[in-house]
């Protein structure tokens, strides 16, 4: 599927992006890739010392997933600005209790175009985004600004 949205208009929706249930292995892989080894994200005993039952995902991992949603839609060369505010902790799925914990660990990223404008001769749009888990807990809200190009955006399922 390509060219789901041939034109960007106010109210245009970004194709919904659904992550895999986030596992502790995903967190370790992100820790290695980003270099963010805050033990809060991989060491259960550290999480316990600050009153948490589980390790939690890096806020920046959730933002990176949102980034993946955006670049799957419009291509990252078109992004001018990207902002996120982190709202809630995300716990990974427990393999020994998968069915009951997968929804808390699955992130859905949605977006809607709210503004079209011209700056320095470039036609731009602003899109509000939200990332929430399948239980409806909002993890991140934010926005991005990108160039309106003539080419149809790529679809996430491409």
């Amino acid at each position: 599927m390509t060219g789901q949205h041939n034109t960007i208009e106010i109210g245009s929706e970004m194709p919904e992006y659904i992550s895999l249930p986030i596992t502790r292995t995903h967190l370790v892989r992100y820790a290695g890739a980003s270099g963010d080894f805050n033990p809060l994200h991989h060491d259960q005993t550290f999480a316990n010392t600050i009153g948490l039952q589980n390790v939690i995902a890096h806020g920046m991992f959730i933002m990176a997933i949102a980034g993946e949603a955006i670049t799957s839609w419009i291509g990252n060369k078109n992004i001018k600005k990207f902002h996120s505010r982190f709202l809630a902790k995300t716990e990974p799925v427990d393999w020994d209790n998968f069915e009951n914990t997968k929804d808390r660990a699955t992130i859905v990223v949605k977006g809607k175009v709210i503004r079209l404008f011209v700056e320095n001769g470039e036609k731009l749009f602003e899109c509000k985004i939200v990332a929430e888990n399948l239980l409806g807990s909002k993890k991140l809200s934010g926005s991005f600004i990108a160039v309106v190009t003539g080419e149809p955006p790529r679809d996430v399922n491409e």
Partner: protein
Amino acid sequence: MADQSKIGMEFPASTFIIEKDKIIEFAIAVSQKEMKNQIHPVYHDEKAAKAAGYEGIPIPPTFLTSSFFWTGDGLTGMVTALGINLKRLLHREEEYEYFCPIHAGDIITRKMKVADIIKKGKGARTLDMTILEVEYINQRNELVAKSRTTLTEI
């Protein structure tokens, strides 16, 4: 508790190379894949990147933050320099502005400073917010991106 006398403090600049394999590793991690042939080809195949209109292999939008952790003094250095308790640290907001394309092979100098430290609330219910701003400058001395990080101590 963050020390407000540190407002305006500049961290030593650090320089890093945008490594192609580091981009691949990052792209695999954030798309929850296992290997490079599963990620978008622009992140590992120069021909695909050029066909998509890039001059080289591009970086994912949040990639630059990783430079914070493995250049300079990293997370531990930052919290120590600012007097922040790691156990109370929360990342509240992150913002990037992109001015010029960044590709594998670029040499980026990051310059980080403490833009602001704000105390909110009274007594035991205070909340410290520390705002860090980073400028990213490439080998041609172009300002390619900026980021702004808001940290809180709860």
